């Protein structure tokens, strides 16, 4: 439905102050797909996402969107192509859902231009796509965690970008809301062709929803590709330092990781045999 954009990272190095987070990274996001970045705590997942969306300038190398360097693209122009939902966005006290979603129209508005019908239509469509139309006049403060996350996604949708970056959109949500949010994002990807790049904590959800899985370890790319290729017992050991069994998920056929730990494992050989 929409043009597919190419987003690439070339020889990228990132850091804060004296600390180097990512040393040298090359990767390409699959156009029109869902890309999920996974890795251990503090491996640079969020840092990478921040840099891809222009929030963090690279030490070295570049992020390239459709052949243009992201950090040299004017802010508003970029914001019409690529949206980002940070991990903990802030809702001003008392703001209504419709108002908050309307803030997503910022890159489409000039300094003093009036609110147009097009803006209203974008807000209405975003509300509908996230099933939050009924909440439009409610205050964001009174929403549940799952509803709030849908509203934030609606704000990012109102921005009407072909690319959407999300930093752990499922944190603080219980399992049913996690699935709800990820299903919603999949709908967007399938119906509108929105390219989605997100950081997820849960390996199994990542493997289930990703078209492309990127595993980072210590600021380097460990593996990139189809979930079945990336989520293996060896890679879990290398990235997380954890012994595990990876079996095909009986419900989806995608890989399913079962951590072994030191207790309660019935018979390691039994599981291995089944694998």
């Amino acid at each position: 439905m929409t043009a597919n954009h190419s987003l690439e990272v070339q020889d990228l190095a990132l850091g804060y102050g004296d600390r180097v987070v990512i040393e040298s990274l090359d990767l390409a996001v699959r156009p029109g797909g869902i890309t999920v970045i996974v890795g251990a705590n503090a491996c640079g997942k969020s840092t990478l996402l921040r840099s891809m969306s222009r929030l963090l300038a690279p030490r070295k190398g570049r992020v390239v969107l459709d052949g243009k360097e992201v950090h040299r693209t004017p802010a508003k122009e970029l914001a019409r192509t690529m949206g980002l939902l940070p991990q903990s966005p802030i809702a001003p006290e008392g703001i209504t859902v419709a108002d908050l979603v309307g803030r997503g129209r910022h890159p489409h508005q000039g300094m003093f231009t009036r609110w147009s019908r097009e803006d209203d239509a974008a807000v209405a469509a975003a509300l509908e796509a996230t099933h939050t139309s009924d909440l439009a006049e409610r205050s964001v403060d009174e929403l549940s965690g799952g509803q709030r996350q849908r509203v934030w996604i609606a704000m990012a949708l109102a921005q009407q970008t072909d690319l959407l970056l999300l930093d752990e959109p499922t944190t603080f949500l219980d399992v049913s809301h996690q699935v709800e949010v990820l299903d919603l994002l999949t709908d967007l990807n399938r119906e509108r062709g929105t390219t989605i790049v997100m950081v997820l904590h849960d390996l199994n959800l990542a493997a289930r929803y990703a078209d492309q899985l990127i595993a980072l370890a210590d600021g380097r790319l460990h593996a990139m590709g189809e979930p079945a290729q990336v989520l293996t017992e060896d890679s879990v050991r290398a990235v997380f330092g954890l012994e595990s069994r990876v079996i095909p998920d009986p419900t989806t056929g995608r890989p399913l990781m079962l951590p072994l730990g030191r207790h309660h494992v019935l018979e390691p050989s039994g599981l291995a045999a089944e694998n």
Partner: protein
Amino acid sequence: MSAETAIRPLGVEAVTRGRIRRTARRGAVVAVLAVLIAAVFATSLMVGRTFYPPADVVAVILGEQVPGASFTVGTLRLPRAVLAVAAGLCFGIGGVTFQTMLRNPLASPDIIGISSGASAAAAFAIVVLSLGRTGVSAVAITAGLAVALLIYALAFRGGVAGTRLILIGIGIAAMLDSLTSYVLSQAAEWDLQEAMRWLTGSLNGSTWTETVPVLLALAVLAPLLLSQARNLSAMQLGDDTASALGVRVERTRVIVIVAAVGLIAFATAAAGPIAFVAFLSGPIAARIVGPGGSLLVPSALVGALLVLVADLAGQYAFGTRFPVGVVTGVLGAPYLVYLIVRTNRAGGSL
């Protein structure tokens, strides 16, 4: 298919209606505030020790010579009332800018030390350096900006945390206030009125010399600030979200700080740090306007109204003539405490 097309426009209508309702309320509030300001402004020109009818006041403003009224209204009351409005606008808009940017109603320039800086510098320029009006303004503005910069630099440790910035501001304000006290204690003659101007703010003895620089500052800096209103609204969602929406966060912050500090400092150099106006205007405006949308214009108007009314009350409502800052201070104190209690209860942003 048909169901979908039927629902869609309805959704858009609802969104449009909701948006119009929000903006309509703000429009109404702004209109009412403007009318009130005009009414109090007119009253403050007419009443006083002698009453002058509207006809005389209008005549004086048009430049005609009216015996008695020309001096009392033209030289005494008019510049004072204009300064009240101008300073109120400056404090109101400057205060709400800081509160919005730092996402904390308590982070207003009068609490985090910017007004204190301008005030200490103005007192120093007058008492120690014996500078004239322009010199005092220049020193106050430089000091206000320097203090803002200092607080920002000190709070910067790989990004500015709002909490740190406010705490450092409080520390700096405490130091500067004691400096002001010291400078005033060194004055050859202890002039209580003059001291009050720099401690709590006063409009006593205002002339056009004080008023005109504030008007010029408003003419230049207020539009600059208003041009950033949308960016500021986006920054309420957090720096990262704002950047993702195409706001150049650091640039916006610099413009906004310079403009807001400039307004605060010009007003402070003319009228002193009128207590709590910068702090109160934003929250009051937010209460009347309701959530969402930019508060810059409504709180500027609330500020102007506050200063006008407080000055009028300070002059005539009590046995003694109180400077405006004392009135706003005493009125503002309970509201301030209430606001802290409420914000803490809500448990949100603090």
